[in-house]
């Protein structure tokens, strides 16, 4: 039986990296008493996989891990026994049994949504009064948004436009708050800071520092651009 566990990673847990988080969950599952399956061999490991890793410094309301378990338990029990083994900043919010044909979360992700804002309310971007109009010109009215993306192999030109599925902006207390839905996963993985960087360049703002952004992942999705389904909506609670 494969279960998809949804969780939040907030507050100070943003400083814990992905590998450390994985190790935390291996031990938490073990403590919870949930009968997880192990691989075969001399060094058996838990059958556990995570959707797209979240970078250090980011928070999220929609993280996922899939685990294979030996004995069925009801979803509420599963959630509460895991929650008893969490720390401040980690909370389990979903526990669903996946259908047999479901794709593992790691390879299923095709899009992710984010809320992005500025850590400092005096960031240069906060002083651009018509930023919402400029965003329309930059994104909604543009036929392409060409950027240079740095990869391991070097640099390549990339058109961001078809990979950004939603780009809204709202001003809260004088600070721009971006609502983004972008392509994610193994083929075209677009980080939200890449979009904001391109926007800053369009705005003509001085050197962009990605550490100036406060980025929260809201959810992850699977499926085609026009028929995205949240990873958390697949399967059923038992």
């Amino acid at each position, binding site marked *: 039986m494969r279960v998809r566990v949804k969780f939040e990673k*907030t*507050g*100070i*847990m943003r*400083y*814990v*990296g992905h*590998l*450390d*988080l994985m*190790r*935390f969950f*291996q*031990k*938490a*599952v*073990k*403590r919870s008493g949930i009968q*997880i399956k*192990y691989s075969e061999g*001399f*060094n*058996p490991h*838990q059958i556990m996989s995570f959707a797209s890793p979240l970078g*250090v*410094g980011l928070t999220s309301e929609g993280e996922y891990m899939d685990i294979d378990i030996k004995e069925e338990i009801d979803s509420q029990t599963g959630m509460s026994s895991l929650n008893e*083994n969490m*720390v*401040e*900043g980690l909370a389990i919010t979903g526990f669903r049994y996946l259908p047999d044909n479901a794709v593992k979360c790691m390879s299923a992700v095709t899009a992710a949504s984010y809320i992005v804002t500025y*850590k400092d309310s005096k960031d240069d971007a906060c002083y651009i009064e018509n930023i919402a109009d400029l965003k329309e010109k930059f994104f909604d009215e543009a036929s392409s948004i060409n950027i240079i993306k740095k990869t391991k192999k070097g640099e390549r030109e990339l058109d961001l436009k078809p990979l950004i599925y939603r780009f809204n902006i709202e001003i809260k207390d004088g600070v721009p708050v971006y609502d983004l839905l972008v392509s994610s996963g193994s083929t075209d993985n677009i980080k939200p800071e890449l979009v904001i960087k391109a926007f800053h360049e369009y705005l003509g703002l001085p050197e962009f520092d990605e*550490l100036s952004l406060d980025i929260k992942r809201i959810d992850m999705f699977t499926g085609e651009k026009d028929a995205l389904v949240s990873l958390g909506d697949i399967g059923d609670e038992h």
Partner: protein
Amino acid sequence: MKKLALTDDILMQIDKPARYIGNEFNSVKKNPADVDIRFAMCFPDVYEVGMSHLGIAILYDMLNRREDTYCERVYSPWPDLHVLMKERNIPLFALESQDPIKDFDFIAMTLQYEMCYTNILQILDLSGVALESKDRTNDDPIVIVGGPCAANPEPIADFIDIAYIGEGETSYDALLDLYKEHRAKGFDRQKFLRAACHIPGIYVPSLYKVTYKESDGTIESFEPIYDDVPATVERQVVTDMDSSPYPTKMLIPFVRAIQDRVVLEIQRGCIRGCRFCQAGMIYRPNREKSVEVLKKQAKELLAATGHEEISLSSLSSSDYHALGELMDFLIDDCLSEGVNVSLPSLRIDAFSLDVMSKVQDVRKSSITFAPEAGSQRMRDVINKGLTVEDIIGGATLAFKGGWNKVKLYFMLGLPSETDEDMKAIPQLANEIAAAYYDTVPKEERQGRCQITISTSFFVPKPFTPFQWAPMYEAGEYLRRAKVVNDEMKAQLNQKSLKYNWHHSDVTVLEGVFARGDRRLCPAILDAYKSGCYFDAWGEYFDFDKWLAAFEKNNISIEYYAYRQRDLDEILPWDFIDCHVKKSFLKREWENAMNAKVTPNCKMSCSGCGSAMLGTGVCFNAR
């Protein structure tokens, strides 16, 4: 949300920010307003090293069982953060509450190795606490140290208020009760320290005066300043291991610790009496936990931590009386639940190989021997009761069982070592390789066997029979390593052998500190001020800065490290009564010089003196 002492901007520019946020599962949360005593427990090295340490885990659990005390953890900030904290005047904080430890009642530090001494100063410096005891006021925390290097606390005497001599389980309650009493009636630091020195195991360096002979600089007298201050401090020892506090809710760090597993202490002390080994002397007598208690603790620890590996901790696990029963239990009960059993260094024999084959992939793992010396004469000098037959026999069994990798550990620079003794190291390795080719038929071999030789340089330690022994200059250690290396290349099976050795500068410095006295304090202070810290980390160790600090303070390395001490000389640690008598150590030194072996504690009692404690191997049925 939990508050953090460091800002987001700092946390995002340093390596591994999770080292500094606390919040680990099983960490203790108390309201500081509800307690009388705030206690900072520091390991003066980086988080991943400190979080692996069992002693701190035991004391953290024990102190937090007191309702009036909140014990929190502190580790040395890595140099990247150190620089930022200095620049921005950020005071060092405890992980749990993130509060500055300058405002705590106690700053306690464990001394696990000599090369951490500058990190003690780093912690005090970043905390904003005066580096020297004499400069502290009634509002400052009490600085206390413990751990194995507190067996000779003299080189850091000026920096500490108290050294706790011995095992922490016994006297902390009395010390904290006394502190509370003194706090309640208007605190006077000097009065408190004066009263504390009457608690067993509590040493207050400022209450003693040391004078030195003009002729040769050795100690003339080492005496209490006041009549009521005890002239000797008795090392503290837990007498009943079964009822002694042991934490089950061990902390789970986010950043991977060196020991990412359950560590189960099965016994304290060692019956072997190797003459170079300080732990083998100061933790006497050997005290075992009962197998019932260990089974229960293993179960509880695995359940409370979720670790997927358990490892046994002791100085010599093969000597534990019920090792077979314990291993069977661990293998039957734990392996089935996806938990690995990792093996401590066991004596290689049929039993241990059988156990190892159950828990390890034979093709990938290696077997380890620690003969410590290459020749039988040298092994008799150090009282290592291991013969060539034991080693070759064990290795042959292992080869038959499918292993083809062997690791060998030796020491160089032992007292009376000759070039012949050094050459015996690669010769022994060659014999082991030959045993492989004799044992395993050609068609069954998977390439060559791999015999890895590692040598470390011997450092004489207080409270050992070798405490009087001379060391060598750094260049001489390297010459000895070269003798080993050249001889290895002359061996028939040299292609199956590999040799690793250590740097030697740091060995000399360790030697100076291990047997140092309080005249070293100004040099350590100057070394820290000139930028020395994290000396245990090769990339930060700067020998030239140390030499400069020694020169400035007229410290002679020759005096502390290279000379042969007179058996009647007053040694800086003689004020400590560690139960093992000096007369026994002298007898053992003479036995060593005559290459005479002393039987282990289970075979017969050699009258070291620790039987007076009335516990452990001295009283168990032999």
